[in-house]
């Protein structure tokens, strides 16, 4: 397939946020790509890969810290005039009817009244909303609301349609239905846009829709792989080609690229890790233990795609769990399969006290942040420190929100492993009694 003319181009886009103490935290690092006429491109990545940030740079909603975004060759200095956007949360104005919502986008472009009404009705019709013109968004189901979101975006016939996880707020069946309809419209050339850029954390969605998948790495986001999808549409999830591609993406996403490898495989290497090199994945101890129990019950091994499908998990749900299990040495991945380790089996099959003790031992060994907290607490006379101490430390490597998240996870894990306790009212962390006595 020869690529058409370029619509939007990002060149060396870097986005950094500044931490309170003046350090720059990169979210995106030198991302370059272009969106051509006639293609659907999927941006895929774990949370923290900056995929939504990249989309907002392309929409002209935020400006990159370095690099440029151009629309048809001219650099953006404000909202991109050639795109329309579909939001995860629909972003409909609740006080306007379906038709008024659709017309609003054209009103902004000063389309005269008769044309406006005509086009709105056509877009409503195309997207299967006829009969709902005078309904208010709150009367509609999620799927129907997102149809309004599509109708609004399509009514202005933009050059490119940007979609920010458009199906992730919908239930599985509704999402599949809407995806299918969009594919049909695209294939039938009824879709009044020239290109589509979709941000997603659903691998199957990406494989099903896209001509090209860009896989982003996390912290900071870089393009790790670019996969062309040459499967004929409509794409059947059961075909070997489809499954193979899904597995490939899983493999890339769980693949070792960082220093994380060292930490996960040899505990001695972990001592060199700092909490900001190896952040704690955003999962609760309970969730992790659930995953390992399922894994143990499955005979200790399961394909990631299969697991995600079964639990109807998207990668943002599943991969942090997998990352945590790997980090703690409770499971390993290879070839897009997850395999439980000896420690993991012990953890999953032991009674609650054994599991907790094991969990405590594992995290104090392998999770850098937990390790750092324990070390600091042990260095004090009464085993107590204010949380601000840790937050200040974490803010050197994380944004304020992210630092809070990290500490919250550490507290959850530490409490579960009975290593330390946390007094929310006073904002203090305290070593468990046993530890203090010892």
């Amino acid at each position, binding site marked *: 397939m020869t690529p058409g003319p370029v619509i939007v181009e990002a060149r060396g886009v870097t986005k950094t946020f500044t931490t309170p103490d003046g350090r720059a935290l990169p979210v995106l690092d030198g991302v370059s790509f272009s969106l051509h006429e006639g293609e659907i491109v999927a941006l895929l990545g774990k949370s923290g890969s900056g995929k939504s940030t990249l989309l*907002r740079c392309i*929409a*002209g*909603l*935020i*400006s990159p810290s370095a690099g440029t975004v151009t629309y048809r060759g001219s650099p*953006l*200095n*404000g*909202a*991109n*005039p050639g*795109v*329309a*956007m579909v*939001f*995860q*949360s*629909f*972003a*409909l*104005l*609740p*006080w*306007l009817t379906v038709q008024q919502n659709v017309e*609003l*986008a054209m*009103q*902004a*472009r*000063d389309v005269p*009244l008769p044309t406006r009404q005509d086009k709105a009705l056509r877009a409503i019709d195309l997207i299967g909303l006829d009969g709902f013109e005078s309904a*208010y968004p*709150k009367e509609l189901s999620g799927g129907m609301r997102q149809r309004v979101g599509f109708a*609004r975006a399509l009514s*202005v016939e933009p050059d490119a349609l*940007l979609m920010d996880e458009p199906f992730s707020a919908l239930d599985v069946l509704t999402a599949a239905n809407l995806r299918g309809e969009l594919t049909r419209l695209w294939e039938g050339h009824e879709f009044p846009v020239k290109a589509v850029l979709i941000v997603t954390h659903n691998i199957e969605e990406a494989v099903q829709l896209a001509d090209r998948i860009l896989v982003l790495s996390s912290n900071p986001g870089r393009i790790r792989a670019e996969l062309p999808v040459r499967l004929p549409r409509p794409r059947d999830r059961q075909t070997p080609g489809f499954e193979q591609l899904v597995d490939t993406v899983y493999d890339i996403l769980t693949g070792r690229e960082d220093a994380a490898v060292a930490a996960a495989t040899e505990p001695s290497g972990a001592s060199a890790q700092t909490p900001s090199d190896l952040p704690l994945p955003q999962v609760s101890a309970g969730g992790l233990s659930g995953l390992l129990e399922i894994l143990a019950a499955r005979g200790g091994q399961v394909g990631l795609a299969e697991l995600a499908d079964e639990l109807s998990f998207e990668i943002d749900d599943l991969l942090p769990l997998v990352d945590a299990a790997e980090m703690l040495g409770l499971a390993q991945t290879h070839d897009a399969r997850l395999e439980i380790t000896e420690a993991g089996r012990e953890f999953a099959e032991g009674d609650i006290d054994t599991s907790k003790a094991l969990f405590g031992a594992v995290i104090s060994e392998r999770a850098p942040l937990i390790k750092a907290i324990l070390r600091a607490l042990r260095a004090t006379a009464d085993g107590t420190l204010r949380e601000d101490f840790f937050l200040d430390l974490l803010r050197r490597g994380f944004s304020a929100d992210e630092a809070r998240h990290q500490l919250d996870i550490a507290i959850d894990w530490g409490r579960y492993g009975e290593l330390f306790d946390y007094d929310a*009212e006073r904002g203090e962390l305290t070593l468990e009694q046993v530890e203090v006595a010892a």
Partner: protein
Amino acid sequence: MFGMFPSRGVWRRPGLHPVDLMVFAALLALLFGLLRLAPALNAPFLPKTAPSTVSTDPANLPYYAVRSLLRMFIALILSVLFTFVYATAAARLRRAEKVLIPLLDIVQSMPVLGFLTVTVTAFINLFPGSELGLECASIFAIFTSMAWNMTFAFYHSLIAQPRDLDEAARVMRLTKWQRFWRLDVPSGMIPLVWNGMMSFGGAWFFLAASESISVLNHTYALPGIGSYVAAAIGQGNLGEVGIAIGVMIVMVIAVNVVFWRPMVAWSERFRAEESAAAERPRSVVLDLLRRSSVPGLVARPFRPAGRLLDAATRPFGLAEHPLQRSVTRARTGDVFFAGAVSAVVVYGAWRALHYVDVHAGLGAFGPAFAYGAATFGRVAVLLIVASVIWVPAGVWIGMNPRVSRLAQPVVQVLASFPANFLFPFAAAFFVATGISLNIGGILLMALGAQWYILFNVIAGASAIPSDLREATRLMGLGGKLRWQRFILPAIFPAYVTGGITAAGGAWNASIVAEIVNYGHHHLVATGLGAYIAQAATVGDFPRVLIGVAVMSVYVVGLNRLVWRRLYRLAETRYAL
């Protein structure tokens, strides 16, 4: 119904900043400017056209009531316009926000009645020889009691706009005008209407106080229900006061039924999330309007005008800010802006202090602070007594849905009712029993302020989730433990909101409650309110300035030291 007093966000601002001090100084400077303006514009004689009293013939009452109502609504319209401009500027202009928001914070802590005399003088001199000056002064006084709360509420709705809606508006490339009317106003409509209603209720008090006023030993009166009452009180005619009270009650209820209830019910369409709340505000009047075709007919001719405006405002540009900005230019601008503001403020504050020093001596601040302590004592006693009485009562009402359905509108009328109408009855009682106004003043201040505690507690109690109530009943939680562990923590946030409002109202009321004239009786209490009122009556502007400044210091200081902490505690610990 008062569950979500939407301007609560006001209290979320962090502690005292240097900028607040600057603003405070700026206000002193501004007030000083007004004070200077007033006598300068003042002709050697005051307009003789203005009558000092109105007729107390009850036949005039309907006309007076309409005049008063008109003032209220003009003030409301002005408040809405002010809100739109001020809040939008504060939310959209980065530099303006730094000045406008702290300014608003201080202004709303100032005793409105304190500078009434100043504004009256200024307005009279703006329109010499006509009643228009007085009219404007009265409307301005009402406006100052309405506008701040509404502005804060709208500002908070602007900055708390959902991010996705903001992004959608920008990607659609709405013009500034379109964005304001399609997104900004609708998303702020609910807090705006609720705060408008609350402020309107509170403003009756200021209407009553501002229609008849003594400045420079001369009393002016505008035709209105407030001056009618003032005249009746002057003659010691309690019967006529009683009639006026009746008319007032009818007016408060009527405005609620035909204006605020429909507004509240209508504004529900702007609620973003579909709340599971079964009880949506309803209004019979609104249902009637919706069923009729009149609104449609009235609206039709306006539609082309709307389209025309939409097109005409297009040149103002998109609701968008450039992505790339020169950092050095922005910095330079900031520096110049900060420099200019500081220079003006410092100069103004210095002139104000100099003025006070020359005319009254800076030592005059000392006694004013002492008087302030006396008034503070009254406010504190009022809050404690009112809490002891109204918290249990409010909890009982709030936890009985049937009772609260009946009680809510009654409490709302009581809260809206201008307490100064009742002062003569209380004064007559004090004269008869020989109670000093030093003690009695507490009661006068409480007449208006206590209701805020009551209806907030009712709202808090009725908002307690029923599953919690059931759980505590199943546990057999009773007596002291039930109050300690369940009821008091659950209503705490609502109580704090009520307490803040009640305290603010009480401080303001002290200006009219610490000096009461009834017939030929002249009762005075020792306190800052009396200090300001006396200074205003004789036209001692330096002392008015001192009194208002000291009272603002007390109010702002207590807000920061006590209320804001309680508020934060309520938010973090006791939010349900």
